[in-house]
């Protein structure tokens, strides 16, 4: 492979990047329109992405078919808008809330098992921020969602699912996206996959933080690829942290233990600081507030030996047996994993937990059809940006993958069918430019650095300075640090010639994309001079509705990031009249 580069080119109608919840759903929707689809994933479809990490919760306003007849799409709409601090585009929130029930019924049809009441209604748990209990309960958690969607994908003969394909760049012709260039890990070859429409569905940027509860593969590839293709990137300052992730011991670091289970209906327990004081008020605050409370405790020196707080259900008034029953019912896999891999039974001993990077609320700017600002390029799921706003409710991520995944896949296919789009070819595209950049890392260099070292440095900078509470000084330091990584480390990455399954080359490509995503994130954080949702600035601690009820937008201009704003789309609930 090195030096003597040979590459293949495949053509489909629709190319989908990402084989978890959103990507599989998009591929299915496109296939149902009768077009040819190639589905690319950097791991194994069905075991990849953030979806297998997810818990039971997928929210939909089932009303009479669920736990509370008063619930409705309108109520869910209001809850999402309020939780997002009026920063979610309401045209998209409308699509999500209007179609969530139908998409969950699709899942049930595919074979996902949901918990039901004895009368046959959807069993739904109440989560902070939901007016009525709205989180439907997937019995085998997010894992069943990914495996069953993968199975559904394999039923469609017009989808070609490809495992171990590391997507690296959007191929463009003029201002139009015509496919993806990536590394086929199975053969060790670079490959172009062309399509009339390209759908990005490869998830978020949570693993550009040092401490994350997501898979290590979530390196924000889609944001960097879309940015380089000329798309608008929006609201990256809103990275959702999750408060209670295990920080010690190392073999289980990053495991989620739900803070929602500390609520009165469950264990009625709490998180404690090193003085033994409970830190959460009851009823539990929603996620962004909960994280700030925890982060403040740790920062002010009331943390545990490894820099966390104590998640302690041993003092629950419900008693040991009931607590064990709750964990075995709600999160059986996590509960057992902590025992098997970490040797810890949380019913008997407190756990050290800390806030970890959890979900990307911002991302690639889309409209209600999933179209980005680049012709032929679509995005859906966590990598897309402007509908969560400044915060997200539990159960929302999975609902979004299904609703917007179906939406983006359908519209991408319809556009490909419409006949206006020419069959894509490689002529007059930027493919040589992307190829040159991708192979840069394989050239032998003196004093080369490992891609892993570059990734670690980026994670350290982002983890330290793009924390739940941030300020100008720290963010400037992060920016300086990232510039140094670009100048001194990135071009010195040296990938050995390993042939197939060259993880080091894959990591080099990830590091390259991560650096752009991290830089855009820091710039977005610096730009928004207020605090809102998951963006909390120590130097601008108040929410400023007069100046900041708008999206932060970054796009590439003359090869450099250009930062501006865009109005939020309000359809039925403008701010101040909620």
């Amino acid at each position, binding site marked *: 492979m090195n030096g003597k580069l040979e590459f293949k080119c495949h053509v489909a109608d629709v190319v989908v990047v990402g084989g978890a919840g959103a990507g599989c759903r998009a591929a299915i929707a496109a296939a149902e329109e009768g077009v040819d689809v190639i589905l690319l994933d950097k791991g194994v479809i069905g075991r990849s992405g953030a979806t297998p990490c997810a818990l039971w919760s997928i929210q939909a306003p089932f009303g009479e078919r669920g736990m509370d007849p008063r619930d409705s799409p309108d109520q869910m709409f209001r809850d999402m808008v309020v939780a997002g601090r009026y920063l979610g585009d309401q045209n998209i929130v409308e699509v999500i809330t209007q179609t969530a029930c139908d998409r969950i019924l699709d899942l049930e049809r595919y074979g996902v098992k949901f918990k039901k009441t004895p009368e046959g209604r959807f069993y739904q748990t109440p989560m902070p921020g939901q007016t009525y209990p709205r989180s439907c309960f997937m019995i085998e958690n997010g894992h069943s969602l990914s495996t069953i969607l993968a199975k559904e994908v*394999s039923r469609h003969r017009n989808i070609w699912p490809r495992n171990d394909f590391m997507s690296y760049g959007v191929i463009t012709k003029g201002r139009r996206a015509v496919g993806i260039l990536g590394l086929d890990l199975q053969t*060790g070859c670079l490959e172009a996959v062309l399509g009339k429409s390209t759908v990005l569905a490869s998830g978020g940027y949570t693993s550009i933080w040092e401490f994350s509860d997501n898979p290590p593969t979530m390196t924000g590839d889609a944001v960097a690829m879309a940015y380089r293709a000329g798309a608008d990137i929006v609201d990256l300052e809103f990275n959702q942290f999750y408060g209670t992730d295990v920080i010690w*011991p190392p073999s289980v670091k990053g495991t989620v233990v739900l803070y929602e289970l500390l609520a009165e209906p469950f264990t009625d327990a709490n998180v404690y600081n090193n003085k033994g004081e409970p830190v959460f008020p009851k009823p539990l605050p929603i996620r962004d507030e909960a994280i700030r409370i925890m982060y403040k405790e740790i920062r002010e020196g009331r943390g545990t030996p490894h820099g966390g707080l104590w998640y302690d259900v041993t003092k629950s008034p419900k008693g040991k047996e009931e607590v064990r029953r709750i964990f075995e019912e709600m999160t059986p896999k996590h509960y057992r994993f902590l025992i098997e891999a970490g040797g810890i039974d949380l019913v008997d001993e407190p756990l050290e937990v800390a806030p970890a990077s959890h979900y990307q609320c911002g991302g690639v700017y889309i409209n209600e059809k999933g179209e980005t600002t680049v012709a032929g390029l679509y995005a859906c799921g966590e990598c897309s940006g402007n509908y969560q706003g400044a915060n997200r409710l539990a159960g929302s991520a999975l609902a979004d993958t299904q609703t917007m995944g179906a939406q983006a896949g359908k519209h991408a296919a319809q556009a490909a069918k419409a006949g206006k789009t020419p069959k894509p070819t490689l002529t007059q595209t930027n493919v040589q430019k992307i190829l040159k950049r991708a192979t840069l890392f394989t050239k032998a260099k003196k004093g080369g650095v490992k891609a892993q070292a570059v990734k670690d440095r980026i994670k350290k900078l982002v983890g330290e300075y793009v924390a739940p509470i941030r300020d100008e000084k720290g963010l400037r330091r992060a920016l300086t640090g990232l510039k140094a990584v670009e100048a001194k480390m990135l071009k010195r990455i040296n990938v050995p010639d390993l042939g*197939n399954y060259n993880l080091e080359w894959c990591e080099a490509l990830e590091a390259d994309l991560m650096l752009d995503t991290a830089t855009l994130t820091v710039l977005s954080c610096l730009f928004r001079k207020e605090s809102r949702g998951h963006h909390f600035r120590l130097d601008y601690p108040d929410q400023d509705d007069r100046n900041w009820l708008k999206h932060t937008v970054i796009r590439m201009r003359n090869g450099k990031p250009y930062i501006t704003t865009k109005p939020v789309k309000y359809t039925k609930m403008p701010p101040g009249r909620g």
Partner: protein
Amino acid sequence: MKVEKKGKIVAKVFRFNPTRDAKPRYDVYEVPAEEPMTILTMLKYIRTRLDSTLAFRDYICYKGICANCMVRFNGKPVRACSTRVNPGEEVTVEPLAQHPVIRDLVVDFGSTTQGDEASYILRRGVFVDIVKAGKG
């Protein structure tokens, strides 16, 4: 468990690149360990500290279910993320037996469910264009 080996784990790991090697071999690594560690933690240690060419699949779900990290451990298929090894043990790690090996511990999970290129092209008449990209 022998006393003199305490403080480390000795791991015999399957190595094979089907496109380059005539046959598989086993490499032996010594991993310092005072406490029990999971197989995955051990493999990550080998890759980051001892031998960066070792290929294996990292965790995805991180709660012992997604099976992305499955390997054969002392002959038995296990999840690497949720199976612990004790200090002083000598262990053998190999790829799963029922799938073709891509490299080292990485197998082609998709070989049973994933569509293959030839049938895709036959079915859909998609062209395959082999392009020489100059000097690369």
